[in-house]
């Protein structure tokens, strides 16, 4: 009888104030691709870190190939055939691919490492040049480096944490081919995700976590999205209603915006033109690192080097205005980074209101204005209530909130300002299903109320759900827009590699179609 590759029994890990894992059991057979499904904060990461040896459980047993084992650190985990690819890459930008991989394998020479990278890359069809510096790689390529690094340890169990969040649909397909080949060779894979369709395509077993407890073990290929999400969040996400609506006046016009990169690993913006009208949602798709960050910096005013006349709100040239001045004209912006940019981690929610809101400021002439503390706290409480933010109250530190709840607060803070132009980046990145549905609902409500909305996202599903028109950004250039009714995942996926210019669309560039 074959032993399970990995068997967890009764794993419990408590932190002060929260039980991250409570009596979790999990069995992974050799060659099985096993999904661990759960919302943010459900305890997936803690469980994986326990398997990988970076956290010690309070109780419970880990068995590897039938033998009880205590893994003290990641090094021991690797020695026992467990490898992990993290969501956030651990690569040094200025070093080459081979040098990065070499770091973990000090016993071999750089030439040997280079040779084994090429061998592994060929074996699995992972196209990579070991001599390239990491900063020249796309995010998808960086992930390949991480996967190769993991494969070089010849793992029997490979853990992947949300591996597709940074990939184009085509790159996801490629990744799945590699993973299926690995599984067919007997390697077990633990696949962490909250994307239901991926799990149903790839995995043959699934353990669902909610609030640190196992709520179900199933074969995802025999389940529906609805039944999986019931296990995951205890309910089905509400369906969004996207009502057809005539777009109104133009609220944001970007004309031929070119901008040299600010930092050396950035992207130059190249002739970007874009138009967002009242009552419509315009989406910008694209793999991260293709100029989204730079474009948003220019639009928000955090970077006000844009040439005069290139960015207009209604008829006013705002290219040179700083963020505060653009905000006074009705532009509100939710950045991708929540902690440290959208909110100050160590300040209370109430104080974080002051970043973009001046409702509780009196006497603006005196030292920038007087903070009316009571009014500020009441305002924060009102937003917490209106947007259903789970927080200890207006005094809770921003960093004490889960990602989803902080995002709800930040989105709420900006929507509550009644913007005429709303720009949001990665609105639901790392946010659980329930909160994501709520945030998308808020975006649509804003559009229905006549606000012009620009959504930049890497999640195609999300863009298809909320947008009226779609652009794609690739290598600092922006594609023409397509009405959502004419957009398909394949077409947008192709455009994400920058391929729109070869097609007939190029001639229609700049023209917009309204539903």
């Amino acid at each position: 009888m074959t032993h399970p590759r990995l068997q967890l029994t009764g794993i419990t890990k408590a932190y002060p104030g929260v039980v991250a894992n409570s009596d979790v059991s999990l069995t992974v057979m050799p060659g099985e691709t096993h999904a661990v499904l759960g919302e943010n904060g459900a305890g997936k990461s803690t469980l994986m870190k326990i398997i990988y040896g970076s956290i010690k459980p309070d109780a419970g047993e880990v068995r590897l190939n039938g033998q009880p084992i205590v893994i003290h650190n990641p090094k021991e985990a690797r020695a026992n055939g467990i490898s992990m690819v993290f969501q956030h890459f651990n690569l040094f930008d200025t070093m080459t691919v081979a040098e990065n991989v070499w770091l973990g394998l000090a016993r071999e020479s750089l030439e040997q490492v280079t040779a084994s990278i090429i061998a592994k890359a060929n074996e699995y069809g992972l196209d990579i040049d070991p001599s390239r510096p990491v900063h020249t790689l796309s995010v998808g390529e960086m992930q390949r480096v991480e996967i190769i690094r993991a494969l070089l340890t010849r793992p029997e169990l490979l853990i992947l944490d949300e591996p597709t969040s940074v990939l184009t649909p085509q790159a996801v397909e490629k990744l799945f081919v590699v993973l299926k080949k690995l599984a067919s060779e007997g390697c077990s894979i633990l696949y962490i995700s909250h994307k239901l369709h991926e799990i149903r395509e790839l995995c043959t077993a699934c353990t669902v976590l909610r609030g640190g407890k196992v709520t179900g073990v199933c074969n995802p290929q025999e389940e529906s999205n609805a039944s999986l999400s019931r296990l995951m969040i205890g309910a089905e996400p509400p369906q969004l209603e996207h009502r057809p609506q005539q777009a109104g006046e133009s609220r944001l016009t970007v004309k031929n915006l070119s901008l040299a990169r600010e930092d050396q690993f950035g992207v130059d913006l190249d002739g970007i033109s874009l138009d967002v009208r009242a009552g419509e949602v315009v989406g910008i798709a694209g793999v991260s690192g293709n100029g989204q960050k730079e474009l948003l910096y220019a639009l928000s005013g955090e970077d006000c080097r844009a040439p005069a006349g290139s960015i207009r709100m209604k008829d006013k040239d705002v290219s040179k205005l700083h963020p505060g001045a653009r905000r006074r004209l009705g532009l509100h912006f939710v950045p991708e980074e929540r902690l440290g940019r959208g909110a100050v981690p160590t300040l209370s929610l109430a104080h974080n209101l002051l970043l973009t809101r001046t409702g509780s400021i009196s006497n603006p002439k005196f030292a920038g204005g007087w903070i009316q503390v009571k009014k500020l706290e009441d305002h924060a409480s009102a937003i917490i209530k209106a947007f259903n933010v789970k927080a200890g109250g207006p005094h809770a530190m921003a960093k004490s909130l889960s990602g989803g709840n902080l995002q709800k607060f930040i989105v709420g803070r900006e929507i509550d300002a009644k913007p005429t132009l709303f720009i949001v980046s990665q609105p639901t990145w790392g946010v659980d299903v329930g909160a994501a549905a709520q945030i998308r609902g808020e975006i649509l409500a804003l559009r229905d109320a006549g606000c012009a909305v620009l959504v930049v996202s890497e999640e195609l599903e999300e863009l298809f759900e909320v947008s009226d028109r779609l652009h794609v950004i690739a290598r600092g250039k922006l594609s023409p827009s397509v009405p959502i009714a004419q957009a398909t995942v394949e077409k947008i996926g192709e455009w994400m590699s920058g391929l729109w210019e070869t097609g007939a669309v190029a001639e229609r560039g700049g023209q917009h179609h309204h539903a």
Partner: protein
Amino acid sequence: MDCGKQGQWRSVGGNIIMLKLEARQQPSNFWVYGSPLLALLITVLVGVVLFVALGKDPLRGLEMFFWQPIRSSYALGELMVKATPLLIIALGLSVCFRSNVMNIGAEGQYVIGAIFASGVALLAEKTTGNWIVLPILLAGIVGGMAWAALTALLRDLFNANEILVSLMLVYVALQVLSYLVGGPWMDPQGFNFPQTKIFEAATHIPRLIQGSRMTIGILIALLGSAALWVFLFRTRAGFALQVGGIAPAAARYAGFSSRRALWTALMISGGAAGLAGALEVAGPIGQLSGFLPAGYGFAAIIVVYVGRLHPIGMVFSAILMSMFYIGGEMAQSRLGLTKSLTGVFQGLLLFSLLACDTLVNYSVKFKRKT
């Protein structure tokens, strides 16, 4: 979330006792205030060991540091005389440190402030009225600001590191001082001492109590502490400065100018240090002298951190540091110990504080393993 560092030792019975630091979910409110007190206790204990090692009665030693400075109203006055410049400089520096502008050149700004103030004070004649005090103080503020402005300008124009620039400018300021008191401003009847003539009586900062050297400077310092509290916690400008310090990307997102923060912070701290210099030369000292620099500008950095960068906390830490100054002098004159003891105590306190601050974010767990 990860558990932090571990250490272990064997107890008598052969069991291994694990000492483990576990990250707290929230910073401990208790240790935010408890840590400086524990640091003080450790400093005292190490001090006792130090006195014993030097062959002195530790009780007598501690008495010099912790009893002598508060035993009489005169002693208390002296305590305040030294606490005043420490507190005023620290208040300004805390604005810098909160906005992550690392000005460590307060000593230089203090000296230049004193020089500017002396320049005005030396203009006074026998017939000049008391009004001259105000221009003297203003000149001190302007001098300190001007010196800090050099640092701000170089940082603003060339992105020059403000830590290095402000520190180097301290030594330039000291050279300017020794040039003036040894050259153009030297008292012709001063037996070649590096000092100016004694200022006219009209220039003296009003004293608070008869028979004490304590001036209204201490009141200015306390008012400054209250004003700083209001600025930091009740005005949007103060808020913007601090956001720039703890989360620069958030400040940029909000539209708070980092240049304005740089200039505001350096002007406030430069002005405060300059004011302290003016209060010192026109107050307890009464002349500009080459012996003016007593390291207040540097000691104030410790005052800031021991006082938790908080306007009220710094009042207490300034008094504590002032005790170390006086205690060091007492230990020298009464016990025959070296005056460097002051610096040793200051350093000990800072080190212990940094160590104890671990407890704010981590809790210590003992685990027994057999």
